[in-house]
């Protein structure tokens, strides 16, 4: 399983992830991104999440592969 999180220390609210994976990322009242628990685990990485990671200017999206840890 892949676990997706946003590092709150790095996220600056560019919201690029919203464009690519609106079903995964949510935003707080100040515009910072987070991944609600119910959205955080996936058997397969979607193209949307891959693009969100590739386009995040702050490199704030972390993808952890459970099997490899």
């Amino acid at each position, binding site marked *: 399983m892949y676990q997706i999180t946003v590092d709150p220390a790095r996220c600056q609210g560019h*919201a690029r992830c919203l*464009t690519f994976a609106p079903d995964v990322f949510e*935003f707080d*009242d*100040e*515009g910072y991104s987070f991944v609600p628990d119910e959205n955080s685990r996936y058997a397969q990485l979607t193209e949307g999440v891959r693009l969100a990671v590739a*386009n995040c200017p702050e490199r704030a999206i972390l993808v952890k592969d459970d099997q490899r840890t």
Partner: protein
Amino acid sequence: MADNLTAGRDFDFHGHALDNIFDTYKELRNRCPVSRSEEHGGFWFLVKSEDIFAAEQSPDTFSVTPSMLLPPFGTDVPLIPIDIDPPEHAHYRRVLLPLFTPQAVAKLDEGMHRTARELATEVAAHDVVDVSARFARPMPTIIFSRLAGFPEADWPKFDRWVDDIIYERTIDPERAWKAGQEVMDYFDALLKARAEQQDAGDIISRLLSAEINGRKLTHDELLSYCYLLFVAGLDTTAWAIRSSLWYLAQNPDAQARLREDPDLIPTAAEEFLRTLSPVQAMARTCKKDTEVSGQRIRAGDRVVLVFGAGNRDPDVYEHPDEIVVDRENNRHLAFGGGIHRCLGSNLGRRELVIALEEFLRAVGNFSLDNLSEQWHGVGPLTLRIGR
């Protein structure tokens, strides 16, 4: 003498220096990642994406005092929040953040479409027309002024102030400072008039009722916010719309592709932002001795982060100087990054996308009428409109 002390000695990122700045970037990047310019009192400048990113992540080393703007924007008042360092910066920024979230900006969508559609329809009725004056500039002026609470009767004054403060400052600094004073006086009067009024649901109302650390904002703080919102909210988006149209006017294939597949416009907009960035560079001041790509930089030295060069860094982008409208991996620096990420980036992006959508929908095939008009700035962009 070392190459990095001679190669970029007259490097500048304003006015005519922008005409061929992409060639300048290419030349400098191949020779040295950090160079020294003697313009504007002297500064180091970084052209590698990775170095710019690292500097933005280190606000304790790379301070925004006395100003991010080099030379200044017609005032020596520190602009809130861009010219403020941590820890105060976060308090000031938090006042505005909720107004520019994706959710807040989404509520403006309908109004943005309407404004863009009206302006584009007028453009479409001409054979030859300056789309900077008729579309790229008025659209963000109308949208942002309504959001901020700048009265409509005053809008005709805004373009000249923006021109004098942002574009004339390197040619005729006195003119920039005079306009800067006029803008300060304008907001001084507007804020005093607004203080008595009820909440109008705009940015000025928000500022008037905002508190930081349990106190209201002072009049000087309010003025500084308004000044920044004015210079940041009107010009950069106009530049982005104008430069995108400048490119499309010369590339009928790209124009046809976006007409056929409007869903591609947001992706193309990112590519225009990357390659034709409205903010080519911003300044910092080194707080402590440091080293960037092997170059020693001393405390007190000015350092310029050249986003426009980082956005064309061959270590990050394939074919960096090509505009690829469907480029997928596009982690660019057009809005800066770190704690000073452009606060209006969600709004600016939506404005650009909507502007292009409505323009392409309403206006027939268009091409440049005046080939000498440059890619940069908000000067005229004269287009020949087909039927």
